[in-house]
């Protein structure tokens, strides 16, 4: 006789994340407007926003506008993902590409873990690696670049570990915490990625 299915098995599956790129500990998923309050909190967080250059407050409405589907049918200048922690089943940050130039085939990579408990666990490194592979393998980029402020050592150490090369430093470019700081520019050309990849 067929065993009766448990109530657990008959419960309709709850879709909370739609993984687009799978990693070991994290997944990159499309942004989810249900989480917009979380995104707003991360963008405004006094510690996290300093090096992310958010020096104006953003409301939930502002952030909703960022992530709403746009009316234009064309390809966007940006691609954004939510970083989803597989085991703990919660979103922990956002990442993606901005300033995408489809003719020069380059873009600015950004990555931010918004939940402090998940810092210093190499999750940022893992998310970046997934994102970089996606950029070269799927989006057909020629160059990925990143701008990181000099005092943000955590961020640029990760970039250098990931294989980014320091292209140069722009002196006194950004006003943070009452003083001018330098801005580092990092680059990764596809040929550099290919060398590291194999």
């Amino acid at each position: 006789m067929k065993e009766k299915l448990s109530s657990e098995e008959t419960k309709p599956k709850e879709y909370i994340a739609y993984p687009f790129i799978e990693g070991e500990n994290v997944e990159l998923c499309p942004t989810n407007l249900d989480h917009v309050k979380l995104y707003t909190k991360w963008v405004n967080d006094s510690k996290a926003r300093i090096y992310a250059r958010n020096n104006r407050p953003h409301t939930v409405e502002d952030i909703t506008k960022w992530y709403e589907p746009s009316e234009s049918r064309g390809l966007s200048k940006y691609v954004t993902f939510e970083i989803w922690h597989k085991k703990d089943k919660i979103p922990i940050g956002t990442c993606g590409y901005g300033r995408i130039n489809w003719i020069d085939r380059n873009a600015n990579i950004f990555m931010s873990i918004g939940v402090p408990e998940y810092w210093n666990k190499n999750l940022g490194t893992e998310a970046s690696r997934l994102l970089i592979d996606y950029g070269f393998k799927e989006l057909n980029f020629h160059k990925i670049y990143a701008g990181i402020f000099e005092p943000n050592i955590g961020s640029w150490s990760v970039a250098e570990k990931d294989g980014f090369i320091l292209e140069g430093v722009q002196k006194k470019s950004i006003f943070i915490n009452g003083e001018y700081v330098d801005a580092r520019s990092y680059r990764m050309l596809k040929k550099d990625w290919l060398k590291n990849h194999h």
Partner: protein
Amino acid sequence: MEPEEVGTFISGKNVDLLPGDNLEHINLYAKWDNDQETRHYARNIFPTTLEDYKKWIEEEKTGTPSQLNFEIYHKGDKKIIGYVGFNHINWSDRNANIGMVIGEPEYRNKDLGTEAAALIIEYGFNELNMFKIGCGMFEVNVGSWKVAEKLGMQREMIYKEQAWVDGKYVDDYKYCIFLDEWKEKRKKLL
């Protein structure tokens, strides 16, 4: 066209800077931005129509401007020969980028570009309270970076293989000058 109609915003020796984004001159802007030689290193890769200019100029702009545009007016010949402006203005960082086009070919290579750029840099530091002014150009655009160097700017960045020009990837240069450096340089230029 007489500048009395719109007013001379900044006066120089051979050129004046007049307010830009003038709806009556969009045919001039369109001519320059589409012309193959003029746009060669200016990063205008798509054809632009008069309707595009109308839309950009008429678009409602809110908040502090991220760009400020001027027309370059040749005093002797009484004609508009190009445009120059600030873009990517960051008011918290007090820095901005310069973009310039001498649209009428007969007026190139006559140091008029250098003069127009000097006027706008002076305006940026002296009136807009800027701290750092920059400008970028492709490595192959030698004319442009020679002007930057004449103005006392320093090359602060080389972005490798940053742009696709003439069928290959070329490097992008970034020049900059700080307020205190300009205070010295301006004595010789203005």
